[in-house]
């Protein structure tokens, strides 16, 4: 979808939808929000709705970074300690690799 052809109110509505959608444990929506609306929020000359879009983009960015931090930490811990956790590790896993602890 080409944002150039949309009127500004519709751009704001779209950005808001993606921002609120990301709260449903969907951090990729926030990433899309940041990437897609970055030019609109920070590069384009000012227009009325731009301030709102800027806040949405900034908050989406923060939310996404938070998710990245949490997931990276959990994935690192799990991959490192799964073998040591024995039974708990097996119950937390969906596919267990064959032949290695």
């Amino acid at each position, binding site marked *: 979808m080409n944002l150039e052809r949309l009127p500004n109110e519709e751009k704001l509505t779209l950005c808001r939808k993606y921002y609120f959608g990301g709260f449903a444990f969907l951090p990729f929506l926030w990433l899309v929000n940041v990437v897609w609306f970055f030019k609109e929020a920070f590069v384009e000359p000012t227009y009325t709705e731009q301030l709102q879009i800027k806040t949405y983009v900034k908050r989406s960015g923060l939310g996404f970074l938070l998710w990245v931090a949490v997931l990276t930490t959990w994935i690192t811990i799990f991959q490192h300690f799964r073998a040591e956790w024995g039974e708990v590790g097996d119950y937390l896993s969906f*596919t267990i690799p*064959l*032949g290695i602890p």
Partner: protein
Amino acid sequence: TVPCVRLLNATHQIGCQSSISGDTGVIHVLESEADLEWPLSKGPNPPYMVLLESSLFTKSIMMKMKNASSRVAGVVVVQKTSPPEFSPHTTCPNENTGVYTETYDHNLAHCNTTVWNPRGNGLSYEEFDSPVFSLKEDNETEVIKQCYFDHNRVVNGSGLQYPLCAMQLFSHMHAVTDTATCMRRSSMDFSTSPVMVCDPLGGYNVCAFIRPYNSTAFGHKENESVVIAAARLDSRAFFLEDSTGAEGSVSGFVTLLAAAQALREATQEAPPTRNILFAFFHGEVFDYIGSSRMVYDMKNNMFVIDLDNVHSILEIGQVKTLRSGTNLFLHSDPVSRRNNTVTNLVKNLQSSTAGLNFSLVETDFSQPLPPSSFQRLLRARAIPGIVLADHQTDINNRYYESFYDNAAHLNLTYPSNLSPEEQLEFVTDTAKSLTEVATAVARALFKQAGGNNSQVNKINADPKTVTQMLYGFLVRSNNSWFQAVMAPELKDILHTLTSIKKVLGSSLRCVFCLSEPNPPQYYVGVAKSSHQANALTYLVQYLLANLTGTATNLTQSQCKKPDELPNESTYLYSYLWVQGVVPPNSTQRESFCVRTAVRLVKAVSPAFDLGDYISKEYSTWTKSQWKFIKARIFLVASRDLEMLTLGVGVAVLFTSLLVTYFVRTKADVLFSSVREPNNAAY
């Protein structure tokens, strides 16, 4: 090719593992122990795949290669000459599951008084993280050696020229850590098709009473007293599917089979007061699977008798060929010796050798029992018993539980000009001496069971049966006698299968079956969920049926459903339709129905029924599953050449990207539009 596979128990994993995409190494044929320097440190092209002959397959060489696993990708053992002695088993077999625990007698536990297998180097119980395969000396091995001589030989100490001959071994095992982990992973089913990771070891015990009981009535039998005659069926080797166990197990159970035959007539004419149970236990090498199962069944009223009915036990251990004048030894348990309960049995045994060429000598009273199934029965109840063996102190079998314990080790030699059928009938010296032992055992059992003393001297084992059994079990199982005693639907198992390539986990698909006449495999194998035993179990079942049962006149359909007939009962007997012999003037076999008291009793460790996978009481051995096992050789290029090829490829990719980009941006310059003169002509 026979691979070394992974086995697991409650605490450890043993055996070998390869990586999931196989282990590749440059082939190096090891000539001596000093030559190990080359793959371990001097050689310039690690990793190496070490090919060694069986005489170099020693613990020191294997441990050195295990410690240098970054330079040694795998080991291939070529079976050639046998070393003077080799036993990969532990020094104290089954030390935690026998009767000698700390509580029973502190001094006798953990082989403190007698080390039973002093030659044992424990190689079978080591863990290797690189694949180890075994090859026979045949055309394939020649190809491998030729490839090595053509490409890999070091010329005057100078460096080797690429391309080099390399070998890749695939034997990726699915199970890890221990039995509890792999059983847990096998039972978790998140997806629609759960992946089975390991299988418990087990099989079937073969049991026969001379006076059968109703097979549905379990538990204690009033006023019944049973003498158990036991032997073990299985053995193992470092490479599990190469187990032969000639002295270790075959000598014992062949003797007991011959004794069972010898007792048939006497017990039918004048039945003794006590019953006799012939019990052939399977899985004894792996912490007494068969005997622990029988004891468990007896204690929980799942067997036709229980421990109170057992009067005494005579177990036949390894009984090697005797030169005339040598003795066999009677082992008993020192703790129960103090109660003098064994003296009667000893007396009966010693008097049974009258007129035979050997005598039975008791061992030192303070010496414990050797590893034997009797230990499990003793662990449950103080029953008097004797283990008959050819060693006075430690086990003198030079090849205990190894793949050299074969017909040659038992001195089973035949004159060279005989055909296979003539070899089957030829009575070897080994057979003659085992026949004498079987006669003594049969007479002793008869007396122990309270039989009439006047009948004893008529009990004699048949040397022809013994030699035929030895031939069939150790040389060639596809012979006319074995064919005659087997059922028609089972006759194909006699083309035994030394090279079974297991495809798709545990289902035994015979992808590459050799129809070579080889002896059956003695390793207990995994307990299959269907009622299928392995070849050895069926052979012993049908042989025992033939030697102790009676031929009937039933037709084949009657044999399947004998209950409809007035005098037959499937509660007491089992009815087996066997092929029979081919009469000299015809091609059709004279099949008939045998009525026999022989039954197969499931022999899986109670730990799996109880779900106690960390049990210290019962065997917890399982075998890992795998997808495929294969090996291949090919020529491999140097690393530099590989990197160069990759670099050139990447460079070509980037160059083409650049060229495409430039052509695209300058397209209007390069492809200046030429007006088509006749474009409006259509």
